[in-house]
């Protein structure tokens, strides 16, 4: 039986093998980890679909593998496996199903743009001609992709690596339509989706890179490959920056009383239940998003619609040794601050260990980026498309504040709100941020208004 890469998350089509845990000849239990694969932002473990003996390992560390690709072959435990054997009573060799519970494949629209590397940019650098073909995947004999010569030629002309195209014909045969579909899908991913990318007005080559100078002319250099986190962040930020007209609104909240309460509360709390300012902000933002639903929407230019989300999932930017990750706290509007704090601590902890699943980073409707722990007086965050707003939090400082009679020391926290000006007007932006500040200054407001 063939063991294939299961669906790990909606929209994820490939990954890089970072560790192979078994060798040919190994007997494995059902759900035992066979290998680990780095996909968009997460490392996922590929489990054995059933108890079996591995007969061949077809991938090595560093290999790029596609969803559905055969990574190993195996014989079912105690018998010569034949995948198509009709069900007997003894455990029949199953075709691998993506069943591990830690990898729910949620049918949500992915809010994370895919890696642009998936469009298989030809390695033009080494080739002598401008119009050269990528020869790295060239094969002969039966290893050639199951496609007619005319289809293979079409793929080459379009710059498609035919070995990445999933054929829909009998025995996986690749048709002309499959190649065209692959291109269409890749283009939609680059242009941010939508059935008619042209209607979004995005111009082609948005992510094209101009030729770089030869830096070695000025001194020695060295390179390192972009890890997938960096590629995805670069793509998402580049897309947002170049397509969204953004405005950043600044305000500040007097959190003297709130901070006193927080410190007091933490004095008796267990370490894992520590109340953080971010957890409080989660609750405040969730209430604000309900009060201002436009901030919880997405713009669909292709259909000329605004999509309001009747759920509040808030992403929290987490600084990890491997780069920026944004786990999403689900249904923040329906949870109390204690629960939110616990969940956030747990998610952040796993994010630092790279144990988040792709699904746990999908579906956010708003994002909070808190750099207060590091310092700074203010920064302008970038909206995480297709969301329309993001809150930036900087370090709170004691400042003299005029209370109408005298100056007194107050703890003041700078907040910045960046929003998509196509969806949100300046006055609404100011009102939304003021609402948040007011709630922080007088938490009763949450109950009164929220």
């Amino acid at each position, binding site marked *: 039986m063939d063991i294939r890469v299961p669906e790990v998350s909606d929209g994820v089509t490939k990954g890089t093998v970072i560790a192979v845990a078994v060798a040919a000849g190994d007997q494995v239990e059902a759900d035992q980890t066979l290998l680990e694969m780095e996909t968009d932002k997460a490392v996922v473990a590929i489990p054995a679909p059933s108890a079996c003996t591995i007969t061949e390992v077809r991938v090595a560390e560093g290999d790029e593998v596609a969803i559905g690709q055969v990574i190993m072959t195996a014989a079912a435990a105690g018998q010569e496996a034949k995948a198509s054997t009709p069900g007997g009573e003894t455990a029949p060799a199953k075709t691998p199903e993506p069943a591990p519970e830690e990898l729910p494949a949620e049918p949500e629209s992915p809010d994370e743009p895919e890696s642009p590397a998936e469009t298989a940019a030809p390695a033009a650098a080494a080739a002598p001609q401008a119009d050269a*073909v990528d*020869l790295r995947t060239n*094969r*002969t*004999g*039966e290893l050639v992709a199951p496609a*007619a*010569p005319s289809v293979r030629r079409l793929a080459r002309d379009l710059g498609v690596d035919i070995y990445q195209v999933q054929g829909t014909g009998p025995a996986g045969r690749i048709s002309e339509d499959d190649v065209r579909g692959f291109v269409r899908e890749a283009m939609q991913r680059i242009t941010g989706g939508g059935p008619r990318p042209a209607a979004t007005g995005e111009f082609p080559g948005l992510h094209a890179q101009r030729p770089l100078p030869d830096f070695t002319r000025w001194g020695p250099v060295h390179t390192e490959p972009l890890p997938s986190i960096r590629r995805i962040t670069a793509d998402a930020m580049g897309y947002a920056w170049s397509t969204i007209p953004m405005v950043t609104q600044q305000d500040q909240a007097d959190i003297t009383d709130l901070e006193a309460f927080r410190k007091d509360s933490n004095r008796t709390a267990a370490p894992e239940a520590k109340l953080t300012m971010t957890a409080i902000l989660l609750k405040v933002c969730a209430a604000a998003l309900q009060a201002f639903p436009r901030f919880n929407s997405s713009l669909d230019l292709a259909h000329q619609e605004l999509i309001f989300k009747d759920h509040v999932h808030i992403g929290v930017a987490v600084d990890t040794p491997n780069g920026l990750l944004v786990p999403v706290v689900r249904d923040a509007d329906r949870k109390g601050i204690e629960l939110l704090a616990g969940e956030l601590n747990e998610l952040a902890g796993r994010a630092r260990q790279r144990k988040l699943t792709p699904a746990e980073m999908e579906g956010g409707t708003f994002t909070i980026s808190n750099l207060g722990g590091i310092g700074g007086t203010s920064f302008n965050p970038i909206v995480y498309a297709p969301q329309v707003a993001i809150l930036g939090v900087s370090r709170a400082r004691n400042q003299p504040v005029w209370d109408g009679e005298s100056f007194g020391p107050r703890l003041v926290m700078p907040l910045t709100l960046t929003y998509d000006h196509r969806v949100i007007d300046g006055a609404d932006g100011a009102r939304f941020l003021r609402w948040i500040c007011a709630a922080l200054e007088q938490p009763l407001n949450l109950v009164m208004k929220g």
Partner: protein
Amino acid sequence: MAAAGIPEKTQLAIIGAGPGGYHAAFHAADLGLQVTLIDPAENPGGVCLYRGCIPSKALLHVAGVVGEAAESAAIGVKFAPPEIDIARVRTWKNEVIDKLTGALGMQAGRKKITHIRGTATLSGPHTLQVVTNEGEAGALAFEQAILATGSRPVMLPGTEPTARIMNSTGALDLEDVPASLLVVGGGYIGLELGSAYAALGSEVSVVEMTGGLLPGCDRDLVSVLKRRLDRKFKAIMLNTKVEAMTEKKDGVTVTFADKKGSRTESFAKVLIAIGRRPHTRDLGLETAGIEVDGKGFVQVDAQRRTSAGHIYAIGDIAGEPMLAHKAYREAAVAAESAAAGKAVYDPRAIPAVVFTDPEIAWCGLTETEARAAGRKVTTAKLPWRGNGRTLTLGRDDGLTKLITDPETGVLLGVALVGPGAGELIAEGVLALEMAATVEDLRHTIHPHPTLSETVFDAAWALPPR
């Protein structure tokens, strides 16, 4: 027709006008490149047309006619033993060659290809040193080049072709029909030429160093051929080495060695057919930085570019299999690449045909390869004796074999032995290139009554999936 003199420069220089060279020249000219083709022969054709495929097939046709006439007694048509006018056979063979090469020459002219009769060696990355047949020498600057210099027959160490010890070129000259002929080498060249000489009247013996004829070919196919060759040839000596050859006035004395010991036998003539070697020496490859492997093949990438990116190598010098139709495909790829196209050489199948009687033809994965790789395949083997067309041809020998993937039913290889197998294999090649499944073959209507029905029946003989 011939352009007098050596031009100063050309966009694309092609050295060698065999199937690879002339096809590349025509294709590149069609794509708008200005082409100079260099070869010593009067017209394009190369080994294939002058000293290989075509003359050997002409002689094999003669062999076929003789053989069929002899076997016709069994179906009630009796002919007197044939009188063979060897001079006329030779002339006819040469007429075939002239007709084909002449047509190619005309085509080169029509496509405005500069055709230099002469030889060329590289003298730098962008220059060729050209010497015409008339002795005129000069330098030719080129932007890109395609090397298609082909291959030459290998002789036994220490031997040179003589009147009595021939290579394939000498055998095809058909100087006479020797009373006895020893063919050294049980590969396709030896068996084809041995068959032709046997039909013309020679007593033919074959000596092969390994344990079987046609090394690399599946044994079940070879055994069908061998049954017939055993009747046509005087002897087929396997696991036997030629230890010594002494040329005498009236023949050649050959010493054989096998596990039983040594013995000596005399033959009127000997044909050495132990293989071919790529013609890459003395081409000045090093002046352009072109790398050659240990066997003398030029190293090429998927577009047939050599280590000098603007110089291509195709055909026999670019690696096995040394077959004209492989060179054709490479020629198209190289010509298109030279014209900034995106072609790559990525065949799913390259057919191989042995034009003996019966013919053997195969493409794709062989059973031998599958076994060596420890790969599971499902095969169907259909003997031809149940096929109507085979019997109406007065034959009963033949076998069609399909090699398929047990999981997907995708066809991995097709192999045939039987009269006309070389024509039938084209269907297999197309099926493999299209990644056809057994199901596809089953639902393709094959004409009745033909030999091609054996492919159809073999598809139905496979277990249903």
